[in-house]
């Protein structure tokens, strides 16, 4: 595809349910980030994948959050037993390779609402 694709674009779920958010990065991009953005707030780092290296999970807020990146491409962010404070826009960004002249391309995000 031409850009980073995220699905679903909107998700409303009941408190306590599990959700899966998907990110399709630009083909060939080796680095992938997940961020969370609450209304009117900044970007909260969640997790970072770089090539075949072990992911940097230092931003995951609790053990209810996990993420995978299969085959170095598609990534899935899973939130178990969702809570109302998980409501936010979840943004995915991919980078061709970490180095000079590379920029992060963001997807449109998934707006998660926990009711």
């Amino acid at each position, binding site marked *: 595809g031409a850009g980073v694709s995220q699905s679903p674009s909107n998700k409303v779920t009941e408190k306590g349910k599990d959700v899966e958010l998907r990110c399709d990065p630009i083909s060939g991009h080796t680095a992938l980030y997940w961020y969370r953005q609450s209304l009117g707030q*900044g*970007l909260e780092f969640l997790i970072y994948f770089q090539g075949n290296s072990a992911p940097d999970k230092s931003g995951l807020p609790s053990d209810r959050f996990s993420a995978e990146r299969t085959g170095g491409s598609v990534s899935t962010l899973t939130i178990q037993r969702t809570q109302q404070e998980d409501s936010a826009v979840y943004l995915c960004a991919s980078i061709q390779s*970490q180095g*000079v*002249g590379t920029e992060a391309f*963001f*997807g449109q*995000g998934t707006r998660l609402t926990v009711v």
Partner: protein
Amino acid sequence: GQQVMQIPQYQHVQEGEDFTTYCNSSTTLSNIQWYKQRPGGHPVFLIQLVKSGEVKKQKRLTFQFGEAKKNSSLHITATQTTDVGTYFCAGSKNFNKFYFGSGTKLNVKP
């Protein structure tokens, strides 16, 4: 750990006034990037600075990278309503993982 601090958090200006946002790091950066997020949109890349003391311009926008490569600024001359949005800096060390600043939300009153 490495942190990138950004100020101010909010800025309200009258159209035609100038605007500046500042980004500061506790450690020396290899490079710094700037992004703009329009209301309801996602961050979009504006520019990257790599060299110590580097200055780049894009029309009314001027970007600077400090001599010590620990700070950066974005200055907008004569703001327009189209400049409304949140501006983020993102720094990295050794061209590795990016650390985003908290962003500066700019509101321009016509």
